[in-house]
């Protein structure tokens, strides 16, 4: 399936881009699976998703936990814990 991934704040600076369209292999349909698939891209990605820092996720503008599933055409976002207000 194809999804769009957005990155924000510190995470955007670490991966060095703000969005990308990706075609996922079969079986990658949860946030946790997506994180592990992206970690395969190299050290930077692996540190990001399995290092100490917390990475939050949203699917189509809704905050979700790691077990949440997405579908073809969805917008997935990764970002640090929020600090507004």
């Amino acid at each position, binding site marked *: 399936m194809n999804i769009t991934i957005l990155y924000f704040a510190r995470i955007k600076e670490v991966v060095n881009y703000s969005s990308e369209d990706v075609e996922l292999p079969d079986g990658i349909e949860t946030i946790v699976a997506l994180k592990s698939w992206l970690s395969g891209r190299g050290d930077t990605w692996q540190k990001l998703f399995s290092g100490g820092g917390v990475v939050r996720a949203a699917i189509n503008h809704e905050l979700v936990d790691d077990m949440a599933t997405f579908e073809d055409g969805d917008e997935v976002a990764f970002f640090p814990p929020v600090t*507004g207000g």
Partner: protein
Amino acid sequence: MSALIDLNVSVQADDFDVGLELQRLRAATPQAGALVNFVGLVRELSAAGQLSEMVIEHYPGMTEKALQQIALQAAQRWPLLGVRMIHRVGRLPAQAQIVLVAATSLHRQAAFEACAFMMDYLKTEAPFWKKEVGDFGQHWVEARVSDEQAKQQWKLPK
């Protein structure tokens, strides 16, 4: 069952006039007997040193929905008549206004508690990120455990 008759949420770069916003909220909810508001400001002094500006990034599309959901949750819990939320984004100098949360209700307790509730949820659920810039360089602000704890207290039975 919500009593809400006026809900207005904005995410904007421009500054806001608190007096004007409160006046509009009063006009939209003439039955109100109480109006409570909170304004968050950019502190001059951060933990790292003297601050020259704050840069606020957000997730366009999700931010507005998140604020709206927070306001609606508050209106489910307290008999609010009106809610106004404004959050600024972009580059803000020290002392600038960042956020306004205001609520009207028949009696004061609902508006007081709802404003505190909405700020606690805004700080932990709305997708904004602050970066501090100053004589120390620049860095992303870390999320505070105390903010998450403040939100959790609303989930405890009264």
